[in-house]
């Protein structure tokens, strides 16, 4: 499973997303590759990703992509990340 964290520059909010997602996936017991992409290269990198993590704003700019897009509102709220990843990844 490959998860792509998409942000504007590939080094600020995207890094935060990746770090929070790592913690959340540990909690959920899910193994995944996490990568960071800036919005400019995200569409190309999305081709090989299974899930995209980004903000609402950038999800709109990203437009339609193949993988499921999960948007995060509060990047420092681990609970939000866990809940949204659980909903997207864990079959109930």
């Amino acid at each position, binding site marked *: 499973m490959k998860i792509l964290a998409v942000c504007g520059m*590939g*080094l*600020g909010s995207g*890094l935060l997303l990746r770090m929070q997602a790592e913690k959340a*996936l540990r909690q959920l017991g*899910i193994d995944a590759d996490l990568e960071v992409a800036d*919005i400019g290269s995200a569409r190309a990198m999305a081709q090989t990703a299974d899930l995209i993590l980004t903000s*609402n704003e950038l999800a709109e700019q990203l437009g339609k992509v193949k993988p499921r897009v999960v948007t995060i509102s*509060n990047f*420092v709220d681990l609970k939000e990340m866990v809940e949204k990843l659980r909903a997207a990844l864990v079959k109930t």
Partner: protein
Amino acid sequence: MGGRCESGMVERDLHVDARADDAPWIREVTSTSASTEQARPRLSALLPIAAIRLRIPAMDWRAAVRASGEALVAAGITTPAYTDQMIATVEQLGPYIVIAPGIALAHARPSEAVLRPGLSWVTLAQPVRFGHKDNDPVTLIVGLAAPDSSSHVQGLATLAELLEDPTRRAALMAANTPRDVLGVITEYERRDVRGVGRG
């Protein structure tokens, strides 16, 4: 348990290499794992006291981002050109830098305007709106300057942990002096090192 699809993993390295020529920072981002973060400067080392400014008046988001850029310049982290680049980032990509309720992470791409990795911390006298759907208005602007995509990883991780913790976040927002802000940070870092707990 997950692991539904492994196909992406095989292509990962090839894909990253293909991107590396026109986007050299991507290679570094993807090769940075949690285990390498220990070698990165800690938050207190990235945030000089000269880059902390409290209750600054700002009439709009531009003034707020400008204040955060000026704090980076004052601490010798960036040249003034970086401040304009941070503002241009929001103009081009929108208010996505508002990463949590009340908090903006202002930054731009690595460039010649970045002299060394570092952060600034600016709180506003009056909150301003960035136009973000969920997280407006903003009271804290963290300015981020990075010469690459990895030197600030540890500092950013600590920052996220501090801001996620309601007690520490409140202590940071209530701080009256730059020294108080650093005090909350260094106290947390000491706990972290001793392994007493992560808040």
